[in-house]
């Protein structure tokens, strides 16, 4: 039996078994999910690289699945994060209702993602894409809260994207009667397909829906917020990256090989890339602005995921080796730190009951490990050295500057500076500030939930000094995409102008200075040090009561909001609401054709008959 098919089979059958096993015991589905993902992972990592292709001819179509170096990178993300998340889910989901449905869809979407990255023909790509979409939809609505706003919007936007893709697939099919991606690329390289540009634009449209690009992002915040945290990690971590994968497929492996003799096409290609990059930049900026006014931690993270995906899109769209490397690096990193963050928020939600930052504060002494992983991943989200986030940010900036997209750099820099605000917001709002009496009972999450987060946090720390560990697979993947001799070093970053940053020195310096300061500050005057609680603060002599909490949580960044008020004035959701209302009115009007009156229907028949007769006699 073919290994790749076996992996998919394990996942899908595991999904069904998990779904049925809920009848047996509420604990079983999570276990089955974990086991099947583990089995798939073991199977993937133990078998040699060349066995991962799989051909199937069915219903007059040829399906080709193949894992090359580029998709291997994404498979690492998918399997790794899903494995950790499913381990986490064992603890997170215990004694919740309808676990069978949850794990069924979880495994299904994981299988769908694997299928997507492995698909080498557009039909199976689309099939797996749709499977992933509807299973993730079922998880998004799993809690059942706010079905219309969240579920229907997600499904409608995904359907718009998917059908745009289908349209494009059909266009390509009508040009050259094949669905096989390699054949398509070969065909593009030699002749000019009449519908190539439209098709690629439509494909990009479809992918930007998943990647939550600017005008199409409105589904994302709600969906990320509503899904259970154990899945949101996967959802925002890897599932959204499928859009990035598709963009890379279109921009870097289809359009890039377009016939260079065809200047118009090359020009259009660059043009599309620019448009996409600018959309990404605007997405990053706007989403960041909206992230920092949120009061719910999960929603804040959802907006920040949208922003991060904006960065990643920029890198792919610019298309220079450095930028592609940067964005793939950021993609993996985003999977790591945003996965960690969502898992951490899930832990907080499970232990403290809510992630609303206006309700809880000062959990640092209660949940130290959760705070630690949150801190690490927030630092790498903010891109502050010496953690891994800095590497990706640096490469992105250098790529943009050396490429001459200077104003885009400024926009990106603005958004990532504003990202500090919400980074601080989430750390402060949940873990710092005064301790509530009603969160005094909160305990640290169980080990099965802590362990995955800690693993990812350690990875982030390691990658901050040794990004080469990740550059290696990325570079191999890029060679598949057609970038020749991608150069990378283990601990040194460099751009095309030859400017370098030596991460080894950086982390050594920081470490030495930090340890020295730590020793100095800790040892000096240790006997005289008084440990005080968060209630013992200088409030101009006033003594806060036991129950009153002085933590500053509401309108956290109000001054910034006031300063940037013009940017907050327009709301995308409102536009879509108006659109849907207008459509609703139109539908209502159209529906009135069916009056429910027999005579009218008879009249329709007669009129139609006469009209058709006249038409036919006159034209044919």
């Amino acid at each position, binding site marked *: 039996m073919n290994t790749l098919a076996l992996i998919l089979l394990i996942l899908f059958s595991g999904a069904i078994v998990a779904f049925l096993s809920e009848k047996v015991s509420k604990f079983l589905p999570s276990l089955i999910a974990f086991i099947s993902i583990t089995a798939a992972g073991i199977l993937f990592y133990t078998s040699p690289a060349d066995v991962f292709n799989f051909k199937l001819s069915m219903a007059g179509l040829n399906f080709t699945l193949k894992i090359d170096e580029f998709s291997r990178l994404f498979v690492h993300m998918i399997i790794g994060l899903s494995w950790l998340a499913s381990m986490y889910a064992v603890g997170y989901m215990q004694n919740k209702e309808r676990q069978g449905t949850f794990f069924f869809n979880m495994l299904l979407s994981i299988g769908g993602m694997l299928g997507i990255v492995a698909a080498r023909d557009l039909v199976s790509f689309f099939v797996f894409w749709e499977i992933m979409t509807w299973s993730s939809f079922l998880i998004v609505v799993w809690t059942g809260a706010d079905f219309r706003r969240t579920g229907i919007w997600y499904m409608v936007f995904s359907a718009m994207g998917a059908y745009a893709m289908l349209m494009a697939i059909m266009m390509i099919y009508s040009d050259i009667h094949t669905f096989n991606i390699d054949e398509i690329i070969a065909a593009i390289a030699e002749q000019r397909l009449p519908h190539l540009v439209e098709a690629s634009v439509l494909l990009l449209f479809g992918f930007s829906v998943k990647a939550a690009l600017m005008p199409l992002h409105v589904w994302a915040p709600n969906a990320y917020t509503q899904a259970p945290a154990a899945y949101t990690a996967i959802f925002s971590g890897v599932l959204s990256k499928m859009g990035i994968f598709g963009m890379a497929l279109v921009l870097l492996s289809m359009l890039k090989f377009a016939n260079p003799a065809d200047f118009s096409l090359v020009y259009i290609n660059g043009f599309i890339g620019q448009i996409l990059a600018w959309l990404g930049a605007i997405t990053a900026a706007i989403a960041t602005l909206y992230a920092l006014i949120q009061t719910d931690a999960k929603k804040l993270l959802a907006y920040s995921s949208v922003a991060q995906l904006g960065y990643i899109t920029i890198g792919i769209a610019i298309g220079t080796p450095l930028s592609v490397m940067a964005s793939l690096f950021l993609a993996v990193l985003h999977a790591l730190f945003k996965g960690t963050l969502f898992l951490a928020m899930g832990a907080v939600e499970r232990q403290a009951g809510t992630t609303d930052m206006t309700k809880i504060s000062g959990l640092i002494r209660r949940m130290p490990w959760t705070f630690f992983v949150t801190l690490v991943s927030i630092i790498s989200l903010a891109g*502050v050295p010496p953690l891994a986030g800095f590497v990706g940010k640096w490469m992105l900036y250098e790529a943009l500057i050396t490429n001459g997209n200077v104003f885009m750099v*400024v926009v990106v*820099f*603005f958004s990532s500076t504003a990202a500090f605000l919400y980074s601080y917001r989430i750390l402060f709002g949940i873990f710092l500030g005064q301790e509530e009496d009603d969160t005094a009972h909160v305990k640290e999450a169980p080990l099965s939930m802590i362990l995955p987060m800690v693993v990812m946090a350690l990875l982030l720390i390691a990658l901050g000094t040794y990004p080469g560990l990740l550059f290696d697979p990325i570079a191999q993947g890029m060679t598949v995409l057609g970038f020749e001799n991608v150069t990378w070093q283990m601990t040194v970053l460099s751009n095309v*102008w030859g400017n370098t940053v030596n991460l080894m020195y950086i982390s050594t310096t920081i470490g030495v200075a930090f340890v020295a300061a730590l020793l100095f500050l800790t040892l000096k005057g240790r006997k005289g040090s008084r440990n005080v609680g968060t209630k013992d603060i*200088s409030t101009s002599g006033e003594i806060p009561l036991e129950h009153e909490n002085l933590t500053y949580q509401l309108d956290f960044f109000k*001054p910034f909001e006031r*300063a940037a008020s013009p940017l907050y004035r327009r709301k995308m959701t409102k536009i879509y609401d108006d659109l849907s209302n207008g459509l609703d009115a139109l539908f209502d009007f159209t529906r009135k054709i069916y009056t429910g009156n027999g005579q009218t229907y008879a009249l329709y028949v007669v009129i139609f008959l006469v009209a058709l007769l006249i038409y036919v006699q006159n034209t044919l």
Partner: protein
Amino acid sequence: MEGLAIKILGAVITTIVAFAVGMTYGGITRKLTARVQNRVGPTIFQNFIDLLKLQSKKTNIYHGVMGHFAPMWIITAAITVLMFIPVLHPGTAWYNSWFPNLSFHGDLIFLLYMMVFGSLGMALGAGQTGNPNSAIGVTRGLSQMVGFEIPFVLALVALMVQYQTTSIQDIMTVQRESGVWMMFSNPFSFLAALFASLGMFRYSPFDIVGAPAELASGPVSEFGGKYLGTMMSGGSIFAFIKLTLYVDLFLGGAYSIPELLIKTFALYMIPVFYGWVNPRYRTEQAIRYFWGWPTALGVIGLLIAIF
């Protein structure tokens, strides 16, 4: 091996110099302010005395691990940035003997991000103390940072794209070879960066972060003793770092310590003077200020740099 020893010695000396210069500048500022207000004022070494006093406090208030880390993060960030910033021009006698720390291993983007490190750690520490004033001060500080980073980045990007480099040495070299300082060759970018520096130094009118009467000195309101002292020293080093960075980028760098002192002091007096004659802005006013003319100047400079 003793090459390493020399390097470490140089690093220590650099740190000491930076610390001393920063503290003294602070004292001089206090003295000058007093003179301007027709007072005698303290000695110019008052800051050293204060620091000594703070470090010799008997009891220290421990607010939790983040509160404990905050000063360390500041000092760590200060030292790290200092290591990666070229204090003097390469090749000069002073430089080779003392200051060749690591300045070839970092570039501008790295410095931009590394400078934030300290203030983020500070913010976290201030957050854990549980004092609402600290959190309010932190939000103001971060918001203001978003304000002045924009013209600053515009200026830096202008330099980078114009001279096709992101390293400070190369920019210094360009100035040395051409003999023209950036503040004359890129006046608009220089002005933008200068306006940004007003926000960086947090003298009035941009001192709402630690407004003493309103916020009880804001983020640091719960810190005293050794913590406050360490923060002070870190802040002094940071002042030196910012000034040196500006000198390197716009004033053609320095060949010797006296030249460096003259240039940095001249530069340092600009925010101080501006502060004397100005009241205090509210946060949104400050942000709007930075997004106004400074950003416009930065954009002009950038356009000039491109074309």
